[in-house]
């Protein structure tokens, strides 16, 4: 998909950005509370949306509540703008709000994302909206909401440290690669949504406001700009972000998160940037990866 900025005409059958104004006000209140208590999960009266639960309804509601007519919206899934669900959500907002959309990270004022944080450093003028499936970092250790809320209230995170310690005892290292738990501003343990732990360091002291929406679980939480976000670890087993043995086959980047693409049935594979906009920008700047000329268009896009 080419990098582009486009505008659309809104559909008049629904209110701007689909939700009615009372609902938006309710969501904005929850967002304000979430910003005031970084990392705390604020319950909100999540609405049924015209896309299924688990497909980004929380992120869509947060975006709808903060979207203004002058915003430029970027939607990514797995780091890419042209993933089917990202296309679907972008079209939804084009249809219901008519705001300008973009694939350029630097041009966007609101970026809705599933599973990734863009590689390019975000700024004070941007808001990153995460789609969250399970907001509770303790959920798989304690299935009951009534219990986990008490644990958060008492700052009782022993169970999480035991889990991480057991990982080390069993595997020699912490065996959590995504949805890696973080502590926000020294208080709440938070699930960064299932972003790979590679992205965790980007959350710390991030200039952009980070909002997290979980529609099915009816929770909103936030990390305000320039807030401390620390990945949980131990002194003798410090947190380590995932590193790749490869450079991007298209843009030769060595600092980005890579997707593994299987190219044939004989073990052939290539590694390419997950953040397609970042990769295209680097190629436009003249960076060339090993396989740039031979990669299929479905992977390389037309910017190759």
């Amino acid at each position, binding site marked *: 998909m080419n990098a582009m900025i486009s505008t659309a005409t809104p559909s008049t059958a629904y209110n701007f950005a689909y939700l*009615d104004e009372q609902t938006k006000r309710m969501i904005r209140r929850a967002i304000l509370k979430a910003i005031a208590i970084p990392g705390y999960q604020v319950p909100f009266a999540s609405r*049924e949306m015209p896309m299924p639960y688990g497909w980004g309804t929380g992120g869509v509601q947060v975006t709808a509540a903060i979207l203004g007519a002058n915003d430029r919206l970027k939607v990514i899934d797995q780091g890419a703008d*042209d993933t089917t669900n990202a296309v679907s959500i972008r079209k939804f907002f084009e249809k219901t709000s008519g705001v300008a959309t973009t694939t350029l990270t630097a041009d966007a004022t609101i970026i809705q994302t599933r599973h990734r944080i863009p590689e390019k450093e975000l700024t004070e003028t941007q808001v990153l909206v995460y789609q969250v499936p399970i907001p509770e970092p303790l959920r798989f250790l304690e299935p009951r909401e009534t219990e986990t809320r008490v644990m958060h209230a008492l700052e009782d995170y022993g169970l999480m440290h035991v889990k991480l310690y057991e990982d080390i005892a069993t595997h020699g290292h912490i065996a959590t690669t995504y949805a890696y738990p973080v502590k926000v501003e020294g208080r709440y343990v938070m699930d960064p949504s299932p972003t*790979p732990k590679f992205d965790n360091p980007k959350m710390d002291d991030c200039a952009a406001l980070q909002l997290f929406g979980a529609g099915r679980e009816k929770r909103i939480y936030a990390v305000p700009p320039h807030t401390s976000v620390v990945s949980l670890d131990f002194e003798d087993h410090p947190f380590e972000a995932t590193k790749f043995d490869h450079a991007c086959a298209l843009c030769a980047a060595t600092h980005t998160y890579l997707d593994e693409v*299987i190219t044939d049935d004989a073990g052939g594979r290539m590694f390419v940037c997950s953040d397609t906009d970042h990769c295209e920008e680097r190629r436009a700047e003249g960076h060339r990866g090993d396989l740039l000329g031979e990669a299929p268009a479905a992977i390389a896009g037309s910017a190759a």
Partner: protein
Amino acid sequence: MYVAVKGGERAIDNAHRLLATKRRGDPAVPEVAHAQIREQLTLAVDRVMTEGSLYDRDLAALAIKQARGDLVEAAFLVRAFRTTLPRFGASEPVDTGAMQVARRVSAAFKDIPGGQVLGPTFDYTHRLIDFLLEAGADIAEPATAPADDAPMPRVTDLLGNDDLIERNPPGDPDAPVGDLTREPLDLPADRDLRLQNLARGDEGFLLALGYSTQRGFGRTHPFAGEIRLGEVELEFVAEDAGFAVPLGTIELTECQMINQFKGSATEPPRFTRGYGLAFGHCERRTMAMALVDRSLRARELGEEAKAPAQDEEFVLMHSDNVQATGFVEHLKLPHYVDFQAELALIRQMRREIAERQNVAPREQQALPEAAE
């Protein structure tokens, strides 16, 4: 190739066009009209109205058509429509005691004031495929009886006159009406919210849970005190008028289960209630709902709660099929970023084990990575 998921807009548009064609089926066969669904697939319409939480037969019928007969998908369409509707307020409580009864049976008493009325039921049919239906045979006129104004008091009210069954707590007309579609569910939840949750919950989930209580997982010793189906009048107090104005009639199914309760230090032994209510004719679901409602009252009634159907958080958090289907089916969405992280970890772990065993891992022998 997995990257085919990066298809973008054209693939989505084409998929939608194909879906529309598949929905229509063979064009040589006449298209089904939503009025036919409304009139001839009424029980499907009733389920979609109930799980969609919106009493609108035409809309539900259209949703069934649009969803190609997938009732969970149809309920989802109705819900997504309902969520955009403005709220004027809450109706007055309906009086099911004043119902225009089309069917009414009690398994607790042989005869009851007003009588047992079988009405339209599958209950005593033989489940033999009726090939005459395929042939389109004429159907006989239904039997009729003179209209009867005899009151049909609820069986539970009759028991209540003798103080043999717990009294329903008196309603507080000034109390706000709980609504889990407008406020996030807070646990533990009061019974009104639990009933709302069950009323729109998945019929299959309620059925399985109710069934589990009958098989010993949280036994509640139920009797079907009464099941009634019919039309009730809906009233709404308009603030300007200052009195209740009728909005029309809706069809409801109500089930009142009578359950044992052995009493306590302060309470004499008395039957307890389980309650089920649904739009239209939804007998199976209201019976299951009544079983589950009673099970969820374990804590309130001082019973040991260890079965799934007694576990409020387990039941309430997993009953909604629109939520459930969305989250289960979201596994179809790409997860390759996280899967890549897991791939890297599993390779690392295998490498470490292999190094410890000083044996080359099989994968490295067989599949040298092309990009290395």
